[in-house]
Structure formats: C-alpha cells, structure tokens
C-alpha cells in the first residue's frame, strides 16, 4: 500500500470557549486532490493554518512524508514542501512578481539576487502549468486572478509537494476558475498533492479525488468523489437535526416596504462581492438569506444601511428612492441596522452601556438639548432599555466591553429595535452567542415582525435561517437566488444553493 503523504492525527484547537478543531484526523495520499468541505465555523481554515504552521495546535500531531512535522513554523513547513495559498494574499504589493518570488528562498542561494534567472524560472513554470503571469509587473497592478497565480507560482518554485488552497475560487470569474482547476490537474499529474478548501460542490466533483467534510470542528466523514453526488455531499455538509422550531404565528405580510433591484457593491479591497441583488421585503415578514461568507452578505448589509455607497442598483423605501444617502439618512428614514461586527462597528467597546444605547441618536432629543448631552434622560432611557431587554450589567455606566457577548448584542438590539423601525437589517446577529442569547435575539426580531416591521435576516447559520424566515433565500456569488416560502424550503436544496449549485427542482 502506498504510504500516505500527510497524516494529521487528533488535531485539536480551541480559542477560549470556542472549539475550532476537535480531534480531527486527515490523510492525504500522493497524487491526490482532497476537497475539504464545510460551512462557516466548521474549522477548515484553522486546520490548514495548523498544518502550515501559522497556528499551534493544542493537541495532535502531523506526519509528513513519514517524518514528524514541527508545529508553529511556516518556515519549517515551507522547507519540507508544504505551501499554502491564502484567501488574503501574502504578497508585497509594491514589489514586482520576480521580487516577491525571490523573497524567502532558502539561504543556500547566496547573498546576491539574480532577478533574470528567477524571471526565467517563473516563465518556465508558468508555461508548464498554464499559469500566465508577467514577471516584471508590480503586484499592485495585477488582477486578483493573476495575484493568485503568483502565489501559486511561489509555491511551485519553492518545490512544494503539497499545496493547500483556501477558498481559491471565491474571487475568480468562471473562466479563471476553469484555468485554476486545469492547473490542479496538471499539478496532480506530476505526482503532487492538493488540499482544496471550498464550499462549492461543483468544483469538488470536477477535480477532487477524495472529499473530507468538517462540521463544527469535527471530521464527519470522508468519501471518494467517484460515486458521490451533489446530494450526498450536501447532505454530509449540512445534514443534521434541526432544533425545535421557534414558536411563531403565521406571517401576514403587508405591502412591499423595501424594494431592491440590481444592487452591486465592492468590499474594502475593491473586489466586487455584490453582483446584482434583487428582492422585495414586505411589511410584517422576515426574509432570511442564507449563504457562506464571501458571497456579498456584508456588502449587502452595509449598502442597505447606508454605510457604503453601491456601485449600481436601486433601493426604494415605500416607493421613495433612497439609494443615494448615508447612514444618518437611512436611520432617519426608519431603517435599523444590526451589523455583524460587535467589536468595532455596532458598539464602541470602551464606552458605557448608556452611551452605546444612544450611539446613533445622540444629536436628537431626548438625548441632548442645545448640544449638551442630557445625562438624566439618557440614564432614564438606558435603565428602561436594560430592563426591557434584560441586559445583565451592574450599572448603565459600565463599559460595554465588560459585558458578555450576549448582553452586548442586546445593547445593539435595544438601540435599534426600540426606535420602532420600519425595516430592520440584521447581519449575523447571533454570531458568537450561546443558545440562550441566540433565542433572545430571534424572539426580539420575531416580535418586531409581529408589530409590522419588515425584517431582513442575513446569516450563515442555516438553522436560524430556517427557523426565522417566512421566506428563505440564498446569497450566492453576489446574487439572491431561490427565494422560497418557508413551507416549501428544504435543507438540502438550500445547502445546494449555498454551495453554488442551485437545484433545478427548487427554483
């Protein structure tokens, strides 16, 4: 029997309370492409970072090419022939492709750089693997697909035998994806191996030999790709017991409140993540959008809330075009926003609870009069809110950072929901919260819906989406796809849509 190229045994890693990896075993054979599947939070990235040495495991060991691999050293991993292509490139933008590739080559090459020789090697490798790149160009001038090719060439020129790719296709266009898959086949043909992290089943089926699925930090199964179907893979990825359904009345949706057409936006680094989202949101209903991170969720939320300006498209609130307008205007128009980032955006950690409760409305009465903050009114309101939303803290003056995650989120909820908004946009509102706090958040949103608000609920937690939504859709590749009514939604088809292959039957 052929000896395994890589064996990871019993890998465990926790960050505080959160168990990113729990006793994971992974085996890769030479000349094999392994697809590593899993949702957000399943632990895929952590596992690979441990393999590459960027993160130290709490327990477990790695054997590579028959020898133990020391943990915590990318240098060691690189020297042994393991290379990782990250989602966020580790390239020096201001330097040329050649410079970037010369960086960090092992020391036996002497003191002087030989740019010409390196450029030649780059061209040779590019030729052999079909990775087209101009060695003389500066990295900042390259398109994202080209940058990724540079990262891959870096790995190849260092003699990598095992390539780890973390969600490589999320930034690529279809023809570039084809080119990448083609490269992987050629790489495999040379006898090397690849671990390919993805949530897209189509790609896995197209190129992988074996599939391993992680869920909640555990390895739930491996299977050869031959003989697997999209359904069987999707089942592995998402299939699990649903929690007891949340108590809810039937929705009686009213007229359309928010109408979004063709909304497009880029993320902070300029990648266009939102590519034309369209949907209607009705009064008294929850539209829940599922999807894996990176498909435009944050951009949709921020754009609707007025924090970033859209590239294209329109937003109509009760028929009025509000597309041009900032956060303050949206707020004034009655759109509440609960962002995902509790640490830096929806709350100021260093400020007190009462200050955070007034964060967006400080300029208006009763919070201030003539430019002076009305401490008394602020305190009164804060105390009331803390009671209404059961925010556990000693005193409204305590800093937000002293509260637990759940209570912090309650501050954001209290602030946004108390204003009786007409539209609520909730983005990952239960991230990092325990089940009790999660329940509270969901109940609050449902209560608001009962009062007639229109709620847009964006989350990568499939259970919640299924539990909360009156209508359920999926954000995939920057578009909203397959919106179905709650009764018609089934986990599998949603899982497929999330994984980039909308099931025909569920259209």
């Amino acid at each position: 029997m052929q000896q395994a190229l890589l064996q990871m045994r019993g890998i465990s890693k926790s960050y505080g309370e959160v168990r990113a990896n729990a006793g994971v075993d992974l085996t890769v054979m030479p000349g094999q492409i392994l697809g590593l599947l899993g949702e957000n939070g399943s632990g895929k990235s952590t596992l690979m970072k441990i393999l590459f040495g960027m993160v130290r495991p709490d327990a477990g060991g790695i054997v590579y090419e028959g020898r133990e691999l020391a943990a915590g050293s990318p240098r060691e991993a690189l020297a042994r022939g393991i290379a990782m292509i990250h989602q966020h490139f580790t390239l020096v933008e201001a330097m040329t492709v050649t410079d970037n590739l010369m960086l960090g080559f092992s020391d036996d090459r002497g003191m002087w750089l030989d740019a010409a020789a390196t450029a030649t090697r780059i061209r040779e490798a590019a030729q052999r693997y079909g990775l087209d790149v101009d060695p003389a160009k500066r990295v900042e001038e390259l398109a994202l697909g080209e940058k990724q090719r540079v990262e891959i060439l870096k790995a190849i020129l260092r003699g990598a035998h095992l390539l780890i790719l973390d969600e490589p296709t999320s930034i690529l266009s279809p023809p570039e994806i084809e080119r990448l898959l083609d490269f992987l086949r050629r790489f495999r043909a040379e006898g090397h191996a690849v671990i390919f992290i993805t949530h897209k089943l189509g790609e896995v089926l197209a190129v992988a030999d074996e599939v391993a699925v992680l869920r909640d930090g555990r390895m739930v199964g491996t299977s050869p790709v031959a003989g697997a179907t999209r359904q069987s893979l999707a089942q592995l990825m998402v299939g699990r017991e649903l929690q007891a359904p949340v108590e809810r009345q039937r929705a009686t949706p009213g007229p359309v409140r928010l109408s979004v057409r063709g909304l497009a936006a880029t993320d902070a680094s300029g990648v266009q993540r939102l590519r034309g989202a369209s949907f209607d949101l009705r009064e008294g209903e929850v539209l829940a959008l599922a999807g894996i991170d990176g498909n435009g969720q944050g951009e949709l939320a921020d754009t609707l809330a007025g924090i970033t300006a859209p590239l294209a498209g329109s937003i109509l609130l009760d028929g009025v075009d509000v597309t041009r307008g900032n956060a303050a205007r949206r707020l004034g128009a009655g759109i509440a926003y609960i962002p995902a980032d509790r640490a830096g955006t929806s709350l100021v950690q260093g400020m007190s609870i009462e200050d955070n409760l007034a964060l967006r409305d400080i300029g208006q009465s009763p919070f201030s009069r003539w430019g002076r903050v009305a401490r008394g009114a602020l305190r009164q309101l804060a105390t009331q809110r803390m009671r209404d939303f059961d925010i556990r803290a000693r005193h409204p003056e305590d800093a937000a950072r002293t509260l637990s995650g759940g209570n912090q989120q309650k501050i954001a909820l209290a602030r946004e929901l108390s204003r009786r908004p007409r539209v609520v946009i909730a983005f990952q509102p239960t991230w990092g919260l325990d089940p009790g706090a999660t329940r509270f958040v969901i109940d609050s949103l449902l209560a608001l819906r009962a009062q007639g608000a229109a709620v847009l609920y964006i989350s990568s937690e499939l259970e919640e989406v299924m539990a909360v939504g009156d209508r359920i859709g999926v954000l995939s590749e920057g578009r909203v796809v397959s919106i179905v009514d709650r009764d018609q939604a089934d986990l599998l088809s949603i899982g497929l849509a999330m994984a980039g292959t909308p099931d025909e039957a569920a259209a």
Partner: protein
Amino acid sequence: MDAAVLLDFLSASLRIATPLLLAALGGILCERGGTFAVGLEGQMLAGAFFGVIVTYFAHSAGLGLLASALGGMLMALVVMVATVRFHAEHMVTGIASNILALGLTSFLLRSIAGGSASAMRVPLLETWAVPLLSDIPGIGPLLFRQPPLTYVALLLLPPVILFLTRTRAGLALRAVGENPMAAFAAGIDPIRTRAAAILAGGALAGLAGAVLSLQQVGTFTDGMTGGRGYLALAAIIVGRWMPLGTLVACLMFGAAEAASLRLQAFSLPVSSYIIQMLPYLAALLVLAVMGRGARMPAAVGQPFRTR
C-alpha cells in the same frame, strides 16, 4: 558671479549636505524596515558627542569615528527596544529619544569636562585631496578636495543602493517594511529584521554626527545638531525613500543653507529664513501632492504582532 564664487558655493553645498546624507541613508534603512526614523536627531547628537570624547581621550580619530557610530547605535537601541519589543508608538518615541539624547549628551559633557567643556577641542579631520583627480579644472576641487567623511558619505551610496536592490537581505528588509505578514509567511523574521535596520540606521546617523563635531567644528556643544536630523527626515520624504533621490534632496538642502549664508554675495532679495524654510516646504509639498500614494513603505509605523 565668477567661477571661484560658484565653485565655493557648490563645494560648501556638498560639505553641508554630508551630515544630512549620512543621516538620511541611515534613516532610509530604518524606514524601509518599517520604523519611522524620527530619532535621527538624537542619534546624530549622540554620535557627535561620543566622537569628540573618544577622540579627545584616546587621541585617535579612528577610534572616535567608531565611537560615534556606536553612540548613534546606543540611542537607536532605545528606540528599538521600545518600538519592537514593547510596540511603542514610533513617532513620539523617536521624539522622546531625541529629548533624552539632548539631556544625556549635555549631562555627560558637564560631568566629564566640568566647566572646561569648551576647552575640549580636537583637531579637525582635514580635507584630503585625491591625487591627480583633484587637479582637474572645475570639478576637481569640488569633488576631490573634500574632508574624509564626505568621501565616506558619497562612497556609501552605491553599497546602500546595491544592498537594497540586489541583495537577499535588502529584499527581505523592503518586504518587512511593506508587508511584514507577507515576509513572515515567507519565512523571514520581521522582528529581527526591523531591529537590525534601526541599529544600522543609528550607526550611520552617529557617523553623521561625527561630521559635525569632528569634521566641521572640532568640539561638542549642546544641541549642536540643530534640527539636522529632522532635515534628513524631510530629505528622505522628498527623495521618496530612495537613496539617489535622497542624495539630490540633501544636495538641494545643502545648497539652500549655503545660499542663506552667502546672501550678500548673491544679493538675493529673499531672507535667509525663507530659504531655510524651503526644504520643509518641499517635503510638505511632496507629501501633499502624493497624498495617499506617497510611496512610503506601506507598513511603516505599524507594530508587528504574532498570535
């Protein structure tokens, strides 16, 4: 204006530019590695001081020069420990080290020399004419009849340029200054690299101080660097963090000062203060025009922390 006056002016420009150039080269190494080189002023001062002290007591200019480099490195060590080890904010730490250097050198001077500080004179480093070359009419006296440290400064340019552009270590340094995470993922140690860059910069800045005390004045007086360290910083900015550009900037600044000292001869209608302002205005202009794309090392001033 006749040729002799012009030649004298150009020669003076080069002489005045020398300490700026040395300090700026050190600053370039430091900043390319990702640390703001605000501490150049204090490092120069320390270099000037230790250069004089050691030359005086050891009767050796060579040892004095070595001491000045070490003195600069000493002040740089303070910056290094604070910023690299403790992640202190670069700019303010640099300023603090300058204040410290000012106090330290004055204090040590008084402690060692007591009241007779001004009597601690050392012989100046003399100009040395390169045989044959210095006899070339015109540029001969200009380029080849200069004091030794001026030659050193000019001769250091090619090695520094080669180092930055053609060596593995230079590439690593530049990467650390642009994107320390990328360098780290490539197997480089950003912490050690930054530390080395800061110290090397300090050594050069110390040498720049020696130009003032050992080559130009012959003794040490409190605060004798007079803001030249900050001027070197401005030169780095105007030179866009590249050695050749910085050379040009230093020469221009040197010319500005030389001109302000020779106002009568040139009968310029502009006051010397306006002229002295030009280097800083130039730096400000360069920054404002380039704006966000200032081409400075992208990660300069940011602490590097690993998990």
